């Protein structure tokens, strides 16, 4: 059976020194996990990863490569003997593909790790460029801003590819510990989770469900978001925690304007307890400074005051437009904007406190006496396994 070959360029991990091998091992393991079920085989040579995929599994394999964090790019690649005529013929074929895509300008980029090849990199670029121009006179060389690039790599064999796809870059998931993502059905938190996955962090997630104040559709929406983010983070356990009794306690015992801040404090408190029990090293939140009343620096200080684990907020300095842009690229936006919002009428005060005093917040939180309720909520948690590549 013929096989399609893909060449993958590792991303940031190439900058690693002595640890590079361990990063590569994680990347290879992740790649194998994402490719499970495709019949594809993974191999590595100096600085390059190769995937050999059986005919018929290409779409699945390419989808896996689009979800692999830690590579700067990938391309469907021709492989041939390290002989000049074969290499030039392969370059002409790649040129044909560029033409078929409507590309008008190109350049050839060559890299030669096997110095015994008779042409040096510059000579390969010149001769391959000439061969392509001769075959397709409408295709012009532009070395500064080409629309397409034909790449030639002379290694143990010659590898030639024209149309390359961008990778997600970052570091392989699993190289930066594991964090607990506070996931809601909104736009921000899935993006925050994705950003941490791109920094190599494995993820678990927690969702605070408040049925009947929150609909089951909202829960399903969050599960779907976890599925999408989980595809990038090599799977994600989502813990669903019933927060209704806590919300009711907050409503009964706290001043109206403080409800949102106190609810977030309770969420952080509960999330940290879960994180510690699960061995997660940090909390990840989708907060962005001053986006809403509970995200002013004063209120963030209040909500953070209950936890000792670091709270990572990758979106803190971004604006809504940027976050929406990222959510669209990630593929969560359309799900996040589904109209199953939490029914917060009872809990969202019309005039929430904007600059809460941490000391006051602490006192109000203590007065809630919600320790037992949090323990009960944690005991009754439900687990959803989301985005596992090998999920049947």
């Amino acid at each position: 059976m013929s096989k399609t070959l893909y060449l993958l360029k590792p991303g940031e991990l190439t900058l690693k020194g002595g640890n590079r091998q361990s990063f590569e091992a994680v990347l290879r393991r992740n790649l194998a996990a994402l490719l499970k079920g495709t019949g594809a085989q993974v191999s590595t040579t100096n600085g390059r990863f190769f995937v050999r995929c059986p005919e018929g599994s290409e779409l699945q394999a390419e989808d896996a490569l689009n979800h692999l964090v830690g590579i700067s790019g990938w391309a469907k690649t021709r492989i041939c003997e390290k002989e000049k005529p074969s290499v030039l013929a392969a370059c002409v074929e790649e040129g044909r593909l560029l033409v078929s895509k409507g590309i008008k300008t190109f350049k050839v980029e060559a890299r030669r790790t096997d110095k015994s090849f008779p042409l040096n990199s510059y000579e390969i670029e010149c001769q391959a460029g000439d061969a392509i121009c001769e075959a397709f006179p409408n295709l012009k060389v532009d070395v500064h801003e080409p629309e397409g690039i034909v790449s030639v790599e002379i290694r143990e064999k010659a590898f030639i590819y024209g149309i390359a796809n961008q990778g997600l870059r970052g570091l392989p998931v699993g190289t930066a510990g594991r964090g607990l993502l506070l996931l809601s059905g909104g736009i921000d938190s899935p993006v925050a989770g994705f950003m941490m996955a791109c920094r190599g962090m494995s993820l678990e997630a927690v969702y605070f469900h408040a049925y009947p104040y929150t609909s089951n559709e909202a829960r399903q929406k969050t599960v779907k978001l976890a599925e999408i983010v989980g595809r990038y983070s090599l799977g994600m356990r989502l813990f669903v925690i019933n927060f209704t009794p806590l919300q009711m306690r907050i409503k009964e015992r706290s001043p109206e304007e403080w409800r949102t801040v106190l609810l977030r404090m309770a969420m952080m408190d509960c999330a940290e307890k879960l994180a510690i029990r699960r061995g997660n090293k940090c909390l990840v939140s989708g907060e962005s400074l001053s986006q809403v009343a509970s995200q002013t620096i004063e209120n963030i200080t209040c909500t953070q005051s209950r936890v000792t684990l670091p709270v990572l907020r990758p979106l803190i300095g971004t604006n809504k437009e940027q976050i929406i842009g990222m959510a669209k690229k990630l593929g969560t936006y359309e799900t996040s904007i589904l109209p199953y919002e939490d029914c917060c009428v009872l809990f969202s005060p019309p005039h929430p406190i904007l600059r809460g005093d941490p000391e006051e917040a602490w006192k109000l939180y203590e007065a809630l006496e919600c320790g037992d309720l949090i323990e009960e909520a944690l005991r009754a948690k439900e687990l959803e396994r989301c985005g596992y590549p090998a999920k049947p």
Partner: protein
Amino acid sequence: MDKRRYFDWAATALPLPSLGDIDIKNTFGNPSSPYAEGRQAKEALEKARSRCAKALKVPAECLYFTSGGTESNALVLHSLLLRPKKVKFLYSAVEHPSVRENCLVLEKLGFSPAIIEVEKDGRVSPEILSKALAKNPDARLAAIMAVNNETGAIMDMEGLSKILRAKDGAPVHFHGDLVQAAGKIPLDIRSWDLDSASFTAHKLGGPRGIGLLYLRKPLEVLYSGGGQERGIRPGTENTSGALALAACLEQYASPDAVKLEQEKARQRWGHLIGGLKKNPRALLIPESRTEDDLRFSPWILQARFKDVPGEVMVRALDSEGFAVSTGSACSSSSPDRPVLEAMGLDEHARLEGIRISQGWSTTLEDIVALLEGIEKALAFL
């Protein structure tokens, strides 16, 4: 949870068990086909039309089978597009989305509809209609429903039609959405002096996808096709649906049946309303509604519970085994409540409204259970 109890009949009714007896095997032919199977189907269809006509006390030639209430309403409203001029028309502020939203479409197309406001009890009074007509003397159509699908408010159709008929100048086409009225309150299309009316089967225990349009005189319609239903609603006819609709109307829309069922329904609703009035957190919409209030259909009730959003109450009751809804099922994904807004309720109150509706199999025991379920849900909320 012992058993599910269904209280959303205004959205769709439980199917009538007797519909299983309908002969669909011998009526499968295309009623337009010239051979025996086609003729047989045509005969069945016309028989169904006659039976509907008899139940509704209108001439059979005035009835056209459609796909349901929405299409019946749309056929009438869209016929305005074929008039030589973009005429003025009126519709009540509490109409079902199938009327209201089609009126908005016409507005986008350059028509200028005017809204007939309602009283605080959600009813269009003859006085309000008079004023609306005085303001819009060139109106050529008025769409007013007989029973409101969210509150159960019964309009004085006879009184309203008198106002319309007394108007000087060109006549006003009076269209009545009778979807929630048929089989629920006594219908008198002749006294109501309607020019057109819409019906649907699935609110009466029939299948979805079949309805009726009553037209006193044929209209020029926008859609064309194979000429079926005398060109008013072209498309291969739904013979088995028509037979089912006829069976439902016979069973529920005849005056005797309506009287009997309505009386039983009023008793049950009286119990529900009385029970809710004892609950300090419950409020009826409108608050003036009483246990045996003849201004309202005994099949539909709108209520709210202090500080509990309607959608939360719906979910809480769902968990307790009861199916109720917030407003019209046709707009349940929209947070807007135009009907309640028209009745003057503020945003907070509108958000709290839920609709409870009963049907042919509802029992007093169901009502007792519902009142308990509401107590239980409120204790938690």
